[in-house]
């Protein structure tokens, strides 16, 4: 079985330090490898270009039951389609970990909630009405009726939209999150 020396070269370990805490790297790599043992080689010294498809990522215990798992995978993946390389995987874990600062988490949470852009064409930073409706539906799993959902979205925009332009910018989101200290503990 590979130990640290055969999986990554020394330089690679040094480089990865900017992304993940040094102790976590090996553990995370093995988790990544476990998801797709045939796809992911044990030897990363040659930096292979391997992507684990979203279907396998979605089976991880942390993500399996999360209603936002598709969106999380899309935000962190290379092309926005949910298939993640090792770098993307490490990014995701480092942001989702407890050690990540709140600002960083708030930034990514904003991207996660901003569902509606499917291509990279329109990845500007807003949460529009459509995003809100998608979020509410995911959160309540269809328990609310359509008009309740739209009423809720209207109220959210009322409360949170600071400049009254009909959608939430990153600043509106952060303003709101700052007043909700239970966020992402």
């Amino acid at each position, binding site marked *: 079985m590979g130990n640290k020396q055969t999986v990554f070269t020394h330089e690679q370990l040094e*480089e*990865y*330090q*900017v*992304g*993940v805490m040094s102790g976590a790297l090996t553990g995370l790599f093995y988790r990544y490898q476990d998801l797709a043992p045939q796809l992911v080689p044990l030897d990363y010294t040659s930096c292979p270009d391997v992507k684990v498809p979203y279907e396998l990522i979605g089976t991880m215990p942390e993500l399996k*039951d*999360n*209603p*936002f798992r598709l969106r999380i995978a899309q935000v962190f993946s290379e092309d926005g389609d949910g298939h993640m390389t090792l770098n*993307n995987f*490490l990014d995701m874990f*480092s942001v989702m970990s407890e050690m990540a*600062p709140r*600002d*960083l988490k708030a930034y990514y949470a904003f991207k996660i*909630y901003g569902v*509606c*852009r*499917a*291509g*990279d*064409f*329109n*990845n*500007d*930073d*807003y949460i529009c009405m*459509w995003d809100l409706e998608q*979020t509410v539906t995911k*959160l*309540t*799993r269809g*328990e*609310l009726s359509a008009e*309740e959902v739209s009423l*809720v979205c209207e*109220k*959210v925009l009322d*409360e*949170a939209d*600071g*400049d*009254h*332009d*009909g959608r939430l*910018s*990153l*600043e509106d989101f*952060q303003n*709101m*999150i*700052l*007043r*909700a*200290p*239970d*966020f*992402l*503990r």
Partner: protein
Amino acid sequence: MLSGDQVNEIVINVENVPSGVQNHRSSNLSVPATKSGVNSSFGVVSSVSGIDVTEPQVYSRRNDRKAKQLLRFSPLKELFSQTHHSPDLVDMDTPCTSHENIQGRQKLIASLIPMTSRDRIKAIRNQPRTMEEKRKLRRMVDKEKSKQPRRIFELNCCTQCLNSISLAYRRCRNILSELLNSISLWQKTLKIIGGKFGTSVLSYFNFLRWLLKFNIFSFIVTFSFITIPQFTVGGNNAFKFTGLEFFTGAGYFTDTVMYYGFYTNSTIRHQSGGASYNMQLAYIFTVAACLIICFFSLLFSMARYFRNNFINPHIYSRGIAKLIFCWDFTITHEKAVKLKQKNLSTEIRENLSEILQENVKLTLNQQLTRLSVHLAAWVVSTGVAIACCVAVYFLAENNLEFLKSHQNPGAVLLLPFVVSCINLAVPRFYSMFGLLEHYEVPRQEVYVLLIRNIFLKISIIGILCYYWLHNVALAGEECWETLIGQEIYRLLLMDFVFSLADSFLGEFLRRIIGMQFITSLGLQEFDIARNVLELIYAQTLVWIGTFFCPLLPFIQMITLFIMFYVKNISLMMNFQPPSKAWRASQMMTFFIFLLFFPSFTGVLCTLAITIWRLKPSAECGPFRGLPFFIHSIYSWIDTLSKSPSYLWVVWIYRHLIGSVHFFFILTLIVLIITYLYWQITEGRKIMIRLLHEQIINEGKDKMFLIEKLAKLQDTERRANPGSFTLERTDVEEPGPLYSQEHEAAHVVFHVSSFLEEALPNDCKAAFSASSVNWPDLSHGPHL
């Protein structure tokens, strides 16, 4: 045609128009000196990706200037938003955008170079970038750093010293914080609890762990400074050991280090001429040190919670937005997720119905009825609390005679038993009031319940303290301090036994009833408030008792340790996740405030009265024979004043601690500072309100400009129907709204470049500005 720079300036200026001005803005143009490159590329960028690049940049820049303090890395957002999903754009060939790009990046690199490599890695790690970008950034920083000429250290040794000291200090702090993080107790268990039950139940366990830290610290301090020296001077134990001591604390334990009475009042000296250890001073200083450190620790925690949780009173929100966006990402269990979703929908529905009903006004009759019900509930609850206190007092008074008539040593347990029964039954009685009373805001109900319970518990402790200090201390018993210590020990132990019984039997029975017999009840929910109050009650007793029974923190340590595991097991077996969002951090603020205000300050008062007013017992303990406890300090100061090398201590004591003038001046200074800070806070609130209004006005300005643009486009289209070309590139279908926007964007784009040439100057200005806002077209009038 306008040059690139001029376009920039005009654009920037429009955004700086003062609020409230909603007319045609072109007359207010002036040319400020601003940074270039904001939105330079109207004529230059014509590809699809260019729109991505410029538009986020503009918004980031504008928002950056206004909201810089909100986001630590906001100056770099523009860098992020264009590089995160399209890394190839970093090397765009358009001169102005890459110039902007490089500028921002150079700022970042410049800020990273002076840091130590550890800090640098940490700072890069906290950037919102992908791994590839972070590595690139690090390489660039390293390259830049190596390029800088190595400064020959001409600094004198003073600055060198300071540098090395600060470096060592920073390194120490980093190591310490990493160490503390790694040895955190029960980390995994807490994660599991949080995953299954959410952050609210987790906050109870965190509180328990925090109290455990207090007790561990107190124990270490008292054990090392008081108990260990006492061990070296042993005494004889006249009692026999029977098993009952664990419950009564009396008997064999009376003559051990456990109680005050065992401690010697002598100055311990092991070798003649060797170091001497004054037990009196050690005792009083150790207890004082424990309490002072607890005080500061509580104060800082409370301040930190207040700072994080203070709600801005200007922007009151009902909290729907918080409900939506505060999905608890720590929940991983499938059933818990489903349950949380169900609860969330129920809560959203309740919130909606509240909103819909908030316009319903109650008639005068209804208001009066509600008020009278509240009043009656308060009267009853206060009455019950006072009745309990009176009962406890009478029981305590008659306890002595009762004990003399009954020779059973277990009879001392009657008083603690009654107190624990009261603590068990009356809070549940208070909860029943909730069925009768109606509150508009459900949170009020929780607060009212908490206040009633804390009033009950604090008044019971208060009446017991009064009894101890008034009756027991003055009754002429020998070793009254030991007696008090034993009483407190018994109270604590009985409380612990009752909690265990409650967890093992009560909750278990409730689960059996809920699951087998009356299935409509289902599983119960963890009552966080009641459990936290029990912890606060126990901690108050421990703080009072440390003076009389120095090993009490050790006992409380063991108790808390066991309680953690018991509660954890019971939680997993007998409870379901809470249905209402609990707002854990607001509650924690309130709990820590409760811990500080009635609890800790009460302890300080009690101990102050003991030390300044009571006469120590003549036969036992470190203060035997003194007229007051405080006289030990007085005599110490007297002895110090005779030796010449410690006169400064005497001076400090006489002129600072003992002097009224000093405290008067200090109080005056503190009041002045408080007043100034209060005024500053008021000023900041006003500023927040003004800024908020400004943001709203800017939004209105934006809408005005969009309408203007749309009108101009209409007139142009009617004038020249053939001169527009719609470029549609092959992009995947993002969503129904956005293909429309995309078209509109291109229309605007080409319109703007066309019109730049054709229109007079002032129209061009308004135009260039408004074409920035192309996504808004989906909300404005449709083209």
